[in-house]
């Protein structure tokens, strides 16, 4: 088992290295010069020797391979580097912002499950009836509307017209817990609309499948109450595919909440990544992509280990 874990760990580390190298090369190959951009803010022309000076100061005049080795050397020591814009530590910024994105994704998943699961079960129980058709249509609608449309609508109705919650922004939980949750609600609901629809559909399909199984019929024949059958025999068995699908989506959301973070001014890691790419802030882009991919790889590593624990054949295969 230990040898297997070591092998998987090595593969994971290699993957992280490949990602780091790819990102480094890609960001340096695409056009756009951070020094030029930094000096050209506000649509004015920087002097070329000013640009040359700044490139030198930022180390961008070095050969690409030299920059690459310096970067890898830094990484090996746990140093993600500093923003080209204002010398701010990239690691500090990720530590600050990653939890916010995780919180947003977590809250969205919670809402999606709370709404999607019961409605999915209900739709399955009423399969073919009016309620099922309505719920399935709503789910299809929720899935097909883009997040920025949902987000903008929610802002328009809840913030601008009803004035229930602020129109976006962020306040630290420690500073004002109530306002923090209020601000979290809108972006979380926006993500949850699509995710909840997915949960509803998967739950419905899964429950329908379980309802046909022999043990459910047997329970029914034994005279077990309907509520108990659903709770103990149906939902529990139907949950596995739901959990798998939700976990997959959460992984994708980690770096994919860009639009929602932008629309709601939520200062998470996705919006930070987009801004960094726009300003060609190389250390920031690399740091964020690296951390997100490392999280993915870590997740896979853990899953691999779990498989091995569950199924001994994996270990020896």
């Amino acid at each position, binding site marked *: 088992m230990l040898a297997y874990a070591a092998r998987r760990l090595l593969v994971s580390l290699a993957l992280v290295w490949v990602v780091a190298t790819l990102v480094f090369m890609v960001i340096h190959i695409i*056009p756009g*010069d951070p020094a030029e951009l930094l000096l050209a803010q506000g649509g*004015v022309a920087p002097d070329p020797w*000013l640009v040359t000076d700044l490139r030198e100061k930022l180390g961008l005049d070095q050969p690409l391979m030299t920059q690459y080795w310096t970067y890898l050397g830094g990484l090996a020591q746990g140093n993600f580097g500093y923003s080209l814009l204002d010398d701010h530590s990239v690691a500090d910024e990720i530590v600050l912002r990653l939890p916010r994105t995780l919180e947003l994704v977590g809250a969205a998943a919670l809402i999606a499950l709370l709404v999607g699961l019961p409605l999915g079960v209900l739709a399955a129980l*009423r399969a073919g009836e009016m309620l099922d058709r309505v719920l399935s249509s709503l789910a299809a609608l929720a899935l097909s509307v883009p997040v920025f449309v949902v987000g903008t609508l929610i802002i328009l109705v809840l913030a601008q017209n*009803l*004035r229930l919650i602020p129109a976006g922004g962020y306040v630290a939980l420690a500073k004002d817990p109530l306002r923090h949750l209020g601000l979290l609600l809108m972006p979380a609901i926006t993500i949850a609309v699509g995710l909840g629809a997915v949960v509803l559909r998967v739950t419905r399909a899964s429950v329908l499948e379980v309802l046909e199984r022999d043990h459910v019929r047997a329970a029914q024949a034994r005279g077990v109450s309907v509520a108990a059958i659903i709770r103990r025999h149906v939902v529990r068995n139907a949950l596995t595919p739901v959990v798998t699908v939700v976990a997959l989506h959460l992984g994708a959301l980690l770096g994919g909440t860009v639009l929602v973070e932008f629309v709601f*001014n939520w200062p998470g890691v996705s919006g930070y990544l987009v801004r960094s790419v726009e300003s060609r802030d190389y250390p920031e882009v690399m740091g964020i992509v690296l951390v997100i991919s490392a999280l993915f790889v870590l997740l896979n590593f853990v899953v691999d280990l779990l498989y091995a624990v569950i199924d001994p054949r994996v270990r020896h295969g």
Partner: protein
Amino acid sequence: MTISATRRALLGGAAAAATLPFLRIPGARAATPGLLTFGLSSYPPSIQPWANTGTAAATVKLMIYRGLVSYAPDGSLRPELAESWTLENPTTWVFKLRDATFQNGDKVTSADVKWSLDQIAAERSTAYFRAQIQGLDRIETPDDKTVRIVTKEPVVTLPIWMASYHMPIISRNSPRGQFIGAGPFILKAQERGVSLDLEAFSGYYKPGLPKLKGIRINAYGDENLRVAALHSGDVDLIEYVPWQSMDGIIANPGLKLDAVDGAFMFLVFNGTRPPFNDHRVRKAVAHAIKREDLVKAAFFGRGSPLTQLPIPPGSTFYNAEYKDGWNYDPDLSKRLLAEAGFANGVTASMLSTAQYGMHKDTAEVVQQHLAAVGINVELNMPDWATRVAIGNRGQYDIAVMGTAADSNDPEGLASLLDGTLSPSYVRSYGLKVDRITELLGKGRAEFDETKRRAIYREMEGVAIEQAPLVGLTWRSQGYAMRSAVTGFKNMPGALTFYSGLTFETTEVA
């Protein structure tokens, strides 16, 4: 099989939803007396006093710092840390300082002015005015209150340089990495990417100012959210009001809009290769575009056609005789093309960016109008960073640009018109018009106002003929605020981005 379920859960959910309207989140409305909440269009990349890091940073700089000179709300130059300035001889300007205090309690002295200018000119400086200050002959400080600036050539616009938000005076005793200014507000706290908190500076040299106790700045990158935040009362004031939202703000009785034609859109050319190295082809472009369509399509009618050089009509340098210099005349365009030997049409590439709607929309409308006279352009619209790089390298035939001049003085257009300056995406690539360079030099050295006006009138005449750039539209630059906000003013023309100066007189009821 069918199993009937109870409706209890559904009813519970409905009841919970019904309570939603009563769950008002506290603080959803901005309401602390004396504290203004300001919705900025982006979080400033850095607040380095002398570097140009964009207009959002400039607005914050105008709250924290002050220079020797600044602008009054009507756009005229006014004394600031210098109570007066005089021209001793054509190459010597003398500034007399007033009694003012930095935010660390130190007096503002001539030594601080010299130190600040030295920092700007320093070898590793990224200051916007580095080249200009390095080009000075010397800076003398005969006493604590006098600064004598000696230039190598006569520079009539030196006081305008000193009024720039990139030229604040900083205390020479500032701790390393910090910049202590003498402005009306002190930067108390900032959360990177989110917000900045400023507090009134009680030692500000203008008695009774600032009127606000503090300013909280929230960055709203999304323009629709910025507007929603104002409508919902989250913020008191916003900048960069999107054009499509202006009508909605005017219609809201609790809000007011302050908009001026400040920034403008224009076209630049690659002057190193055909067809745009021929001024007749450039002029053909100028006459082919119906600007009214542009104003409608790209700016929702919030702007005005620009058919001459971008000198605002309110300026003393405005030349009414060139009002229709580049009027819409497709027949003239076709004639000019034929004269230049392109009777059968021209094919070229046009650079813009899809990252900003106004650049993209402008490019698309211009493309259609050009096609109508036989100039077929293929659009290249990468992200902004790539567009800047391509522009600086001249890898285009014709490009869409948008900016505001450095000041309302025609010298502010030099960076757009002077082809002898280094290559830059803001001006045409490799397009030198010697007479324009000459006249810009003459205007810079002429102290007589009437003669200066004549020089720039001649320059505009040359520019209309040679079209080193082609004006498209003025675009409206708007601030919107709650009716309770008073004393804030959108400054005229190119100075719209200096409106941050009026935060010192702003009040919120």
